[in-house]
C-alpha cells in the first residue's frame, strides 16, 4: 500500500517536473480513488473492479475533449472492516482526491460510510449489496450504482405475482442477511398485493432438520416457498420438501446462485427460482463496448461480475468532475441530482439516499442443471411448467 503510494507520488512528481519543463497546454491533474479487496479470498472481484475503474480513467485520459487529466489512487480494503476504515480515512483525508468508487464487500462498505460522511468525501459504491449502506443513514456523500437485496426482492415478488401464485410461505435464516431478505420480500409482495404470505419461519443457519417447519408449511399448503438464505440450508430444505411430498415452487435468492446448489441436489434442483443483482456483463446495455475496451487493455484478470459497475461508478465520477470541476462539495451536489443518466449498466437514477433505483436484476430458473435466465427459459415460454404454473 505504502509502496503504491510512493510510486504514485513519484509518478506525480515526475509529471509535475515534466509540466515545469514546458508543456504549456497540459491539463490540470485531478486525483480520483478506488477501494476494493485486492488481497484475500474475494481478491479476484476486487482486482476485476480495480481494472475496470482503471479502464474508465484511461479512456477518459485518451479523450482529447476531457478538461482534466485524471490519476487513479488505488487502496486495498482486504474485505475487512477494520482495514477498510483505515484506508477510507487515508483516502478521504487526502484533499487532492476528489471522489472514489468504493467497496465490493458489504461489511467494509457499511463500516466506512461514517468516515466518508465525516470527511465530506463523495463515494459511489460499486459492488456491495447490503441495503443499510445507503439506507441506514441519509448521507449525501454515499451513493451506489449496483442494486441491493431490495431490488432483488422486488423482482422476485413481481415474478411470483405475475405467475399468478396466491400464497407464499417464507423460510429465512436468522442472520442479518436472511432477515433482510424476509423483510424486503414481504414488503414487496404486500405492495403488489396479489399474493399473500401464509407463514414465516426463521431457522438457524446451521440447522439440519427442517421437517417440523416443512410439515407446518405443508398444512398451510402454499403455492410457493420463499427461501432467504444461503446454499447449504437451501439444499437441505429443497431436499426435505421432496421427502414430505411438498409440491410448491422453491423460490430462492442470490444466496443460492452457485454451482454447489445444483451439485448438492442433482435433478431436484430443477425449477428452483433465484435472483441476482447485476447481470452477466454481455447482457448489459454497454456490455459489448465495455468488454472490447477491457480486453484491449490486456489485464491479467477478467472484470468479474461487478467490474462493469466499477466502470460505471468511476465513469460517473469523471463525468461529474468534468461538469462541475474538481471540488468535493460541487460533486456531492451534482450527484444528488442524478436522474436517468446513461451508463454501460443502463440508465442510473439515484433516490434521496443515493441508491440507484433502476438497478438491473437477473432472474434465474434452474433448467437441466444450469442457471438459465428466466426470460430465455422453457418455463417462461410455456414449454415446461413450474408446479401450479398457469
Amino acid at each position, binding site marked *: 500500500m505504502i509502496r503504491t503510494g510512493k510510486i504514485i507520488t513519484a509518478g506525480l512528481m515526475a509529471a509535475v517536473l515534466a509540466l515545469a519543463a514546458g508543456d504549456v497546454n497540459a491539463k490540470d491533474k485531478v486525483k480520483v480513488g478506488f477501494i476494493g479487496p485486492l488481497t484475500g479470498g474475494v481478491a479476484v472481484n476486487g482486482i476485476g473492479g480495480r481494472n475496470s475503474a482503471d479502464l474508465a480513467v484511461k479512456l477518459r485520459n485518451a479523450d482529447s475533449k476531457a478538461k482534466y487529466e485524471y490519476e487513479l489512487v488505488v487502496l486495498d480494503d482486504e474485505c475487512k472492516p477494520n482495514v477498510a476504515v483505515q484506508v477510507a480515512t487515508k483516502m478521504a483525508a487526502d484533499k487532492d482526491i476528489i471522489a472514489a468508487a468504493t467497496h465490493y464487500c458489504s461489511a467494509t462498505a457499511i463500516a466506512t460510510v461514517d468516515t466518508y460522511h465525516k470527511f465530506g468525501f463523495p463515494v459511489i459504491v460499486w459492488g456491495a449489496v447490503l441495503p443499510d449502506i445507503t439506507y441506514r443513514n441519509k448521507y449525501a456523500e454515499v451513493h451506489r450504482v449496483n442494486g441491493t437485496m431490495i431490488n432483488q426482492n422486488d423482482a422476485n415478488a413481481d415474478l411470483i405475482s405475475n405467475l399468478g401464485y396466491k400464497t407464499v410461505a417464507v423460510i429465512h435464516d436468522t442472520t442479518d442477511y436472511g432477515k433482510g431478505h424476509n423483510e424486503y420480500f414481504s414488503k414487496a409482495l404486500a405492495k403488489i398485493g396479489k399474493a399473500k404470505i401464509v407463514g414465516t419461519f426463521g431457522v438457524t443457519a446451521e440447522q439440519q432438520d427442517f421437517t417440523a417447519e416443512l410439515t407446518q408449511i405443508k398444512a398451510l399448503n402454499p403455492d410457493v416457498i420463499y427461501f432467504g438464505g444461503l446454499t447449504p440450508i437451501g439444499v437441505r430444505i429443497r431436499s426435505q420438501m421432496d*421427502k414430505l411430498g411438498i409440491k410448491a415452487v422453491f423460490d430462492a435468492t442470490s444466496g443460492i446462485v452457485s454451482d*454447489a446448489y445444483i451439485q448438492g*441436489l442433482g435433478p431436484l434442483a430443477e425449477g428452483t427460482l433465484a435472483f441476482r443483482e447485476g447481470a452477466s456483463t454481455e447482457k448489459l446495455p454497454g456490455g459489448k463496448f465495455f468488454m472490447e475496451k477491457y480486453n484491449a487493455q490486456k489485464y491479467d484478470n477478467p472484470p468479474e461480475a461487478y467490474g462493469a459497475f466499477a466502470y460505471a461508478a468511476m465513469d460517473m465520477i469523471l463525468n461529474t468532475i468534468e461538469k462541475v470541476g474538481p471540488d468535493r462539495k460541487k460533486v456531492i451536489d451534482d450527484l444528488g441530482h442524478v436522474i436517468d443518466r446513461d451508463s454501460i449498466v443502463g440508465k442510473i437514477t439515484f433516490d434521496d439516499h443515493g441508491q440507484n433505483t433502476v438497478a438491473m436484476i437477473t432472474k434465474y430458473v434452474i433448467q437441466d442443471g444450469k442457471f438459465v435466465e428466466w426470460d430465455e427459459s422453457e418455463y417462461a415460454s410455456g414449454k415446461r411448467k413450474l408446479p401450479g404454473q398457469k
Partner: protein
Amino acid sequence: MDVGLFAQYVMNGLMLGMMYALVAVGFTLFFGVLDVIKFSHGDVVTVGAFTALAAFAGLHALGFNSPWLDLVVMLAIAMMAMAALGMLIARYLVMPLRSAPALNTLLITLMLGTVLRESVRLFYPQGGNPKPFPALLPRNSIDLGSFNLRLDNLLMLAAGGLVIVGLQFLLNRTKLGLAIRAVAQDEETARTMGINFTAIVLITFAIGSGLAAFAGVMNGLYYNEINFGIGLYLGVIGFSAAIIGGLGSIYGAILGGFLFAGLQTIGTVLLPFASAYKDVFAFAVVIAIMAWRPTGLIQEKISERV
C-alpha cells in the same frame, strides 16, 4: 390439527429421535467403561457418513448398481472403518490420559473433533459443499391425507430399533457384554477376575463408533444430503440426550434421544413464536430437567451401569 398432520409430526420426531438415540448410546457406553466424555463422537458420525459416501462412489466406479448390495457394503465399510477409528482414538488419545484430570480427555477429544471435521472439509473432494447422498432404500410412499408415509422411513426406524435391541442383547446376554458390564462396574475387580481391561475398553469404543457410523449413514439416507457440519450438531444433541437420560444408562440415552426430538418438534409446532426458537426451547427444557434430576432421568445405579 388433523390426524394426518399429527402422524407426520410423530414420524418426523421418531426419525430424529432414532438418530439422536444412536449417537447418545455411544456417549453413554464410553462414559460407562472409562468415565470419560468423548466429544469427538459427533464428528465420527460425519466421518462415517462420508466414508459410506466414498464407498458408494467406489462401488459405482466398479460397476455395481444394486441398491441393496451398495447399502450393505457401504454400511459394512463405514461401520468397520469407524470401529477401527474409535479403537485408535481410545488406545492413543483417551487411555493414555486415564490418570490425568477428566477435563483433559474432554479437551483433547474436542480438539480431535475439530481435526476430523476440518479434515473432511479440506480433504474430501469439495468437502466444504453439501453432498448429495444416494437414496438407496425403496422410495415408495403412501399419501394418507396430509401424512406422507414413506417406506424408507419405516425401514430406517426398524433397522435402528433392531440395532438397539441387538446392543441390549449383546450387553445383557453374552459373555462379552458381561465383561463390559464388569469393567463398567469396577475396573479393579474386573481385572482380578481375569478380564482383559484394555481389550474390553477398545471393543466398547469400537461398538460405540460403529453405531455412530450407522447413525451417519441413516442421516444420509434420511436427508439425502450430508455435509461436514452434521456431526457437530448431532454430537451436542447426542451428548445432551445422554445427560438427561442419565450418563451410563443405555435406556436413559435412548429415552433422552427421543425426548429431545420430541421437544424440538413441540417447540416448532405448538409454540406461538417462530420456529427459530425451537432449540432454545429444547435446551431450556433440558436445563430444567437437569436442575430437577442432576443425575439424569434414569439414575445410574452402580450395579446396572454399562
